[in-house]
């Protein structure tokens, strides 16, 4: 995952070279420089893709929506005033696109787990965690992953999003509030509600 710090175009000037570099990339991209935009895409592609993937549980859909997000961001770049960081702005585009997509998809839940490269089985800590937490020892990582995705899909879009952004991607409440355009209290309450429901769905996989 990229370590690039998000830039705030309209914010106070920063001495951080990564941030000023990003500002430069944004300016060039605004002028139609696709090479600079390419660099911006590379900075955030993994996080944007991951968010969309965890929301849709489908690699193909996540791929299409992630590409659409960056295309739309490029097209709307001239209207980007810098009221928030570029990173938050792109995230917001991705989230809106994904939620719209999910509302349209509703009754067409598909998962393409076989497309994913599930490399957790090479991580001894993760294997230990799964063994600890799974009552049936034979339950493999892929089964656990499938159950997790099923449980996630049972949540509403906003609850799934808040769990994805906080518990999977590790974003702070404040940043999630900016992305979801709501206050921090709403984020906390949604997170609480979503976790409660997930606990209910995954009770067999959680240690007593």
């Amino acid at each position, binding site marked *: 995952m990229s370590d690039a710090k998000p830039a705030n175009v309209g914010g106070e000037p920063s001495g951080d070279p990564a941030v000023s570099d990003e500002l430069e990339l944004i300016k060039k991209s605004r002028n139609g420089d696709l090479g600079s935009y390419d660099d911006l895409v590379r900075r955030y592609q993994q996080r944007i893709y991951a968010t969309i993937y965890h929301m849709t549980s489908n690699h193909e859909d996540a791929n299409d929506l992630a590409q659409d997000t960056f*295309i739309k961001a490029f097209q709307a770049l001239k209207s980007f005033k810098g009221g928030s960081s570029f990173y938050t702005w792109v995230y917001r585009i991705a989230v809106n696109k994904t939620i719209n997509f999910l509302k349209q998809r509703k009754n067409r839940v598909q998962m393409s787990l076989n497309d994913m*490269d599930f490399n957790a089985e090479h991580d001894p800590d993760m294997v230990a965690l799964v063994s600890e937490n799974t009552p049936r020892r034979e339950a493999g990582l892929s089964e656990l992953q499938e159950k997790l995705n099923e449980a996630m899909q049972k949540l509403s879009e906003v609850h799934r999003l808040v769990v994805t952004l906080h518990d*999977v991607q590790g974003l702070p409440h404040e940043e999630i509030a900016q992305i979801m355009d709501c206050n921090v209290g709403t984020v906390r309450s949604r997170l609480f509600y979503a976790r409660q429901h997930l606990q209910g769905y995954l009770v067999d996989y959680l240690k007593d």
Partner: protein
Amino acid sequence: MSAEQENFEALRKLLAVKRYETPPPGYFDQFAGEVRARLRAGDHEKEDLWRVIGDEASWLQRLWGALSNRPAFAGACGMLLCGAVLTAGIHYSEVADTDVKNQSVAEALSVPGPAGTPAQLALGQTPAQNTISGTNPVISTPAPAGLFDQIPGQAREVNFSPAAGNQ
């Protein structure tokens, strides 16, 4: 809210498993290139159109979603729409017929203005004030004295004598 009091630690650890779900190797090496290719191909222009249709007309998306989820409701809406179009068509065709008839009547009732007809002008007559008064559509115009009184110009006597050579 007692979010902090609840123990979600086990759940959080379990959810961490999802961080290991990554796309096939090499996927991100090509991703930016694919976005750039679509941008070069002009996809952003299509995107712009869809943005206008989709995002700015979100009511259309909601309507479409509502209809696609309820086929019976969609069918009823379709029939209503067809009925409305049919009714409107019949109504407007009747209105159009009435307009044509009214236009014919208006032409039949049309009267010359104060300048009068060319025949009246040629005969030096003062044009009659053929205004419609009241609701009586019958126009009273003075009847001409004779059929040929309306013909402009004057009749002249003409003498005809055959040429001398013909005698």
